[in-house]
């Protein structure tokens, strides 16, 4: 349909325009990463064996995610304080299973010393991480674990079970111990989400205090605001007797809160889960949400950075019993399975939410 006679000038115009578009598109695609040179001078403090020119790379599940941003903020500060010369943050803009692989490969080729990754899929990233290790990089998983064979240590915000139990406890309090509840999660294959959900299901089944609570549905909003919104809507329609929703993901809980606060269900259906205080403040104040939980995400990034430095310097290898100091946060011990715990979760409500800014 575009085969009309074309004059040479037009053809030139066509070419220029196509090139301009292509160039712009490429620039846009390449805009995903940032490099921040850290203070290389401060590295000497870590002791004789410490590498002073080491590079650390953070690969979050997705860039431009507000929760990730707080974690990375802590991570960057931690990296600087731990003595990394350069901190890179790269990652996909969408949290899909295979999207992180190209970033891992590129960072391996660039010769990074430590990769700190939150896996979108525990296995999809494995072969790329194996190559990175062959090239000499240390692998720290944070937030969402990879397959344990593919990393040196896993930094967990909290004990997974604690996170699950606090959420079942909160929902039980808010619905008065009985009724139907549902879970609105992120993606169907997110490691951390599924682990918490598993613990919640076990807790609901085994704890006699929860015998009148029935989990009727698990839905997935893919950590997308609009999708989570529509899933929340669907839940309430499909389950007219629903008393409460647990959303163990910051995007999901905020989207659900928004839906509840703008619908007739406000104040009638309880909502709890893991949320960011800044995102949830208005919903706590208008009564849509009574209490929700989270840990301090910045500390997660910080501990990850210190663990990465200890691995790079060779002070720890990731075996159970290894100890390292995470700056001001104090000493952390590597537990069985290469697990490192940051700290207990915090509960936020009307009284204390204004004390937090993240």
């Amino acid at each position, binding site marked *: *349909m575009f085969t009309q006679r074309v004059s040479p000038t037009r053809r030139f*115009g066509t070419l220029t*325009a196509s090139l301009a578009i292509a160039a712009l598109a490429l620039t846009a695609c390449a805009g995903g990463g940032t490099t921040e040179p850290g203070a290389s001078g401060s590295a000497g403090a870590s002791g004789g064996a410490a590498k002073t020119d080491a590079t650390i790379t953070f690969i979050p599940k997705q860039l431009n995610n507000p929760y990730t941003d707080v974690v990375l903020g802590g991570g960057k500060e931690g990296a600087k304080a731990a003595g990394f010369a350069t901190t890179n943050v790269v990652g996909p803009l969408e949290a899909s299973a295979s999207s992180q692989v190209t970033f891992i490969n590129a960072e391996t080729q660039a010769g990074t010393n430590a990769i700190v990754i939150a896996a979108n899929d525990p296995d999809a990233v494995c072969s790329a991480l194996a190559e990175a290790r062959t090239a000499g990089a240390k692998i720290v998983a944070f937030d969402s674990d990879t397959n344990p064979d593919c990393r040196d240590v896993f930094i967990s915000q909290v004990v997974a079970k604690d996170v699950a139990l606090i959420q079942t406890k909160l929902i039980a309090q808010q619905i008065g111990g009985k009724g139907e509840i549902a879970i609105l999660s992120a993606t169907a294959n997110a490691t951390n989400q599924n682990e918490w959900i598993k613990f919640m299901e076990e807790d609901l089944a085994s704890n006699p205090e929860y015998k009148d609570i029935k989990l009727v*549905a698990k839905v997935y909003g893919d950590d997308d605001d609009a999708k989570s919104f529509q899933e929340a*809507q669907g839940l309430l*329609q*499909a389950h007219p007797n629903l008393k409460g929703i647990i959303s163990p993901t910051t995007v999901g809980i905020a*989207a659900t809160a928004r839906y509840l606060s703008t619908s007739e269900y406000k104040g009638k259906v309880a909502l709890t889960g893991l949320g960011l205080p800044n995102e949830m403040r208005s919903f706590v104040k208008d009564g849509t949400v009574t209490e929700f939980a989270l840990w301090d995400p910045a500390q997660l990034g910080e501990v990850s950075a210190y663990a990465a430095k200890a691995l790079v310097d060779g002070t720890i290898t990731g075996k159970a019993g290894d100890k390292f100091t995470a700056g001001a946060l104090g000493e952390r011990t590597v537990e069985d399975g290469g697990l490192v715990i940051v700290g207990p979760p915090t509960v936020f409500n009307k009284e204390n939410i204004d004390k937090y800014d993240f």
Partner: protein
Amino acid sequence: MSSPSHGTLNRAPASKGLGPHTSGLGAFLKLRELPVTVALVALVIITTIANPLFLSPQGMKDLMLNATIMMLLAAGQTMVIVTRNIDLSVGSILGLVAFGTGTIFSSMPNMPIPLVLLIGIAFGAVLGAFNGLLTVWAKVPSLVITLGTLYVFRGLNNAWAGPKQHFAGDRPEAFGNLSVDTVLGMPIITLLAVIVVIILAIFMSGARQGRDLYAIGSDPEAAKLFGINVSRRVFTAFLINGSLAGLAGVLYASRFNAVGATTGSGLELDVVAAAVVGGVAIFGGSGTVIGAAIGAILLNTITSSLTALRVDKFWQQAIVGVLIITAILIDRLASLRHAKNLREKEGRNV
């Protein structure tokens, strides 16, 4: 080919370059818009029987709200598709405008809402005009141009927003209430979208400029010979489509909690799907704005009804796919039959 008056060129399955139509066309056209309407009504009835909550006041409101943004985008996209073009950048335009709206309110919470709506529309219009200019001036298929601007606009959004998100709590309550309060049982943003769609429908079927778009899509060469300023009309279609995406962006910010760098990504294919399901021929020249809007309502209603019926949501995409293929098959069959009718008629005339 005889040169038909562009008043009759309108709804032909024009990629086949058919000539003037006969009065049978009216019924034939209805047949093409009918399936989507029938499907929608049947879906609503079946779902309501299975789950009466589906048509409760809150359920109705949710259905309308869900379709609002898609309706606007599908209506705009129809204008562009009718001219044998396509705009894949609408999701990115929506994202930029939605984030812009959040930014305006977070720095100037007292900005009058109508003014914000106008700014959003103007912003969308500028982005749409950029698409239009490139398409018209460079004579590159708009598929390629807008595929490029899809990434360019998204890239700009990523650069501008970074990890920053604006939340509903930062925006004035009155603005958020646009998607909560109802007038005549319809949420305000839905009412706004319906009015815009109706105006667009009247423009497309009644105004000369609107009819010209069909003529261009039916046969660009003939349209040019007939004296239609093809470039200008196509440019206008992109401009209007951009403005509608802009309006949709502002409404998105009113309805949803967070607007940020990824807002609206992936919407473009849903929009094209809505238009195709609504009977808009992907090769241009035929289809109506109303049909596309009904297509948008249908696709959103499918999602809602599958959840209300507790069907696994992974089925939803497969069902949408089947609908698209069905819509295209119906289109193809209808045009084949039309072509056959014409041949027979011409045969008799000889």
